[in-house]
């Protein structure tokens, strides 16, 4: 990391190349919410505990409140706005499962929770209970008591494994 800290920041956000003139000490959560108007990434504890601001950085889940612009310069970032089903404008199987199983209430933790679930299922397509707990213990939810979330993650896991299933067949 010998590059001087100028104000020029680039990254691929949700598949699109982004160029911004910002201070390199800007937090990623502010880059997303303020500069790119991607408010699906939520701000809550700002100390990396609650997971509401979770995004994928080069495929890995990170709390965007803890990442500064210079640390994600040139990386590939996916926010909740970048997640969708086979076509843009449709729900990803994980999002679909959250809707069907009541995996949210107020919904403020949900984008972060969905992103962490994406990372979990990418790493463990058929997660055990322990893997679910480990994968999501960095995301706090105050409304659901996690019951609906666990049911959603299990269902999403089944869906993601059986990729060819049509929407009609998945409604039980």
């Amino acid at each position, binding site marked *: 990391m010998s590059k001087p800290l100028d104000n020029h920041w680039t990254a691929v956000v949700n598949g699109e190349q982004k160029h911004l003139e910002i201070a390199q000490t800007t937090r990623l959560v502010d880059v997303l919410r303020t500069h790119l108007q991607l408010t699906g990434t939520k701000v809550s504890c700002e100390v990396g505990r609650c997971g509401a601001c979770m995004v994928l950085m080069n495929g890995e889940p990170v709390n965007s409140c803890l990442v500064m612009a210079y640390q994600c310069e040139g990386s590939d970032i996916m926010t909740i706005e970048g997640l969708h089903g086979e076509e843009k404008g*449709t729900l990803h199987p994980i999002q679909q499962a959250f809707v069907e199983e009541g995996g949210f209430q107020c919904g*403020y933790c949900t984008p972060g929770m969905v992103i962490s679930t994406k990372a979990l299922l990418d790493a463990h397509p058929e997660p055990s209970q322990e893997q679910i707990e480990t994968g999501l213990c960095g995301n706090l939810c105050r409304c659901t008591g996690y019951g609906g979330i666990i049911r959603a993650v299990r269902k999403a896991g089944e869906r993601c494994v059986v990729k060819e299933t049509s929407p009609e067949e998945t409604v039980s």
Partner: protein
Amino acid sequence: MLLNRKQSGKRWHLRPDGAPKVTGQLQYLTDMTLPDMIHGRVLRSEYPYARILSVDTSEAEALEGVYAVLTSKDVPGLNRFGIATPDQPVFCEDIVRYVGDAIAAVAADSPERAALALDAIRVVYEELTPLNSTDAALAPGAPELHEHGPGNVLHRTEIKRGDAEQAFANCDHIVTETYYTPRQMHAYMETEGGLFVPDEEGRLNVYAATQHGYKDRMQLARIIGYPEEDIRVVSSPIGGSFGGKDELNVQPYGALLALRCGRPVKMHNSRKESVRAGLKRHPMKIEMQTGMSREGILQAHRVRITADTGAYATLGAPVLNFCTEHCLGPYAIPNVDVEGVSVYTNNGLSGEFRGFGGNQAIFAMEGQMDRLAAIMNMDPWEFRRRNMREKNDPGPLNQRILVTDGLSQVWEALDRSELWQKHQSPPADPALPPWIKRGVGAAIAMHGAGLGYGIPDPAGGRLSLNNEGKIEVAFSYEEFGQGLIATLEIMLCDLFQCSTSDLSIIIGDTDRVPHSGSSTASRSTTMAWMALQRLQTPFRSRVLATASVMSGIPTDELVTGPGGVWRKDQLPAETSEVETPEKAERTKVAEIVAGRTESTQIAESYLGASQYLAKEGVSSGFVVSYAELATQGEADEWIFDTKFDYPTTPDNVVGGHYLYTYAAVAAEVEVNTLTGETKLLDTRHVVAAGPVINPMGYIGQIEGGSVMALGFTLTEDAVMQDSRYVTTNLDTYLIPTIQDIHTNLEVEAIEDLPEGDAFGPRGIGEIGSVALAPAITAAIHQATGVWVNSLPVPREQLVRPLNVPLQEGVSPS
């Protein structure tokens, strides 16, 4: 009925706000921005208790990019707020009473510049010794925090019945115990904030979360000196509240700054500021003495409640009323002597919180019941049955209450449960190491709904056919996650056999909804249901009469259905069909939500009625569409309003409730006696709250309430030292994570109501959170022999050397 997705069948209704939430497209009020907006921040006190000698804002005002710096002299109206007792200053004039007290507010062109401006405000204080406990505040000679004393007492309560002193003298057994409960934090994920926009017509638009938009509007009008009609409060969607956003928080500052600057002002509290300034659950000390006869029948109950209400009143008095009412439990006790006191201190700000004082009371009372049963060497559940109030007995305050079988039903259902049966033969697993102990406990509760006798509790609603041909309902309730919009959809589809795409649901906007009261006290579902019962007949009559005129078919051969009016015998059978995921996506999201959802791709791509009909290929029985009906006559002829009050007991007992819900909870725990850690393994909630309208919402509320109660029991406490918060964020204030929960939670719903019951489904927002704590501590007792009397459960009480046998006893020291 065991409540789960499978059992719910077609009533498993997907939420219309689901797609916008899981895609991140939903704009919360704190996500809103406007191009010319500026940023507001509040300067809060450096001390929990101090005299303000001077405030110098000149340096801050001179900073570049700073648009306004406001102090108490800039408040045009009342410099106070508070729903019940307006004693909290918008800006302190001469005294600060807690670390969240506001002294000044600034607006600047960036959040960073606003922070700089705060730093540039010079406040000179004379520090005072804070009253850091209720004992200190009640001590003779303690300084009075408020003029409206006497002393530092906000409120006192009392229930006296029979002759307790005499009765205790005749009791064969008496249990005396003191219970302590923590300063629990709401920990809603979205901290307080919003956008404040003055418009060209001179009105102020407030986009900020609250549980009661009209109450906010009234209070803001008082503060800024505006007529209420000149303020619009938009208050949904909300990222969680649990009672914590019921009082004003950032609204006075945002409003004053926006009006001063003539520009939109954005406010958004950091988590640390939210902790510092926001409400908490009242910490309470509850001393209880309960006596019984040789046969184990309760004779006398003496209770002394001391609640730490913190610096300002908020709803401290009603919370104490509620606690007082609920500290008798659902039991028949002839001699009662209860006194409660709510005390001002410099310890933050206590206020309303899910359960509203019931949680503390029920923890204490159920603890007494377990201790008494142990003395009798009796099954604690059987002990409760012997002492439970009879179906026709008056309520805890000797007031008349609505008769239901709820109490005995939840008792019986839990008694039958496999989990509670484990209590008879304490679970022992030889595979477990000897320091792991298991136990099962249970608790029961009756919990009042609504605000109670003597407190204005208006309700109502509006049902109309709007000019787009949608069946529109409007209420002043709020969606803070509980699933209100989905519940309203289900109710309307049930009533009119229509489809969700025929509906328009409007909430959370004082310009667009009638005054139908607050979303608090588990009241919204009941009130919405009662309003729709009143409104459906006039609405349907008008719809069918108009359809009859248009078609020539007699009204008694017509019914409402999907898309419009149908011939009765040709209504499609599957009108309220289960929501398919595909359909959920095209379901029109309630306007208040969709209106601020940037992408309309998912939220608004619903099929209109005509497309629906074409797609379904059913038109032979179709008479006329809602859209066509709406063109007939004047628009206001299609609007129906109702107003009424939440049902209250006819007896003059302030705060006394009329409708109660009932719950029984069993819990199995595992205690590690080397570390003191308690793990909740299994839980069953039995809830008697009338018909289940929205199973997904119902399960979610009970599960969520239960896990919130788990935190209350095992880990949560906003610790203060010298009236300053030690736990300032979610890294040290520990709410349950997905690793801490009881994954075997089961919910059993008892749906019976008496024949002809006029009140319908009862709210269940609170009942899941009130009885878990005593069930867990009873289970801990079975596992370890330790009677826990303090929450969160002190781990050190459960740690013991391996070679010491378990001992019975009250409150180990």
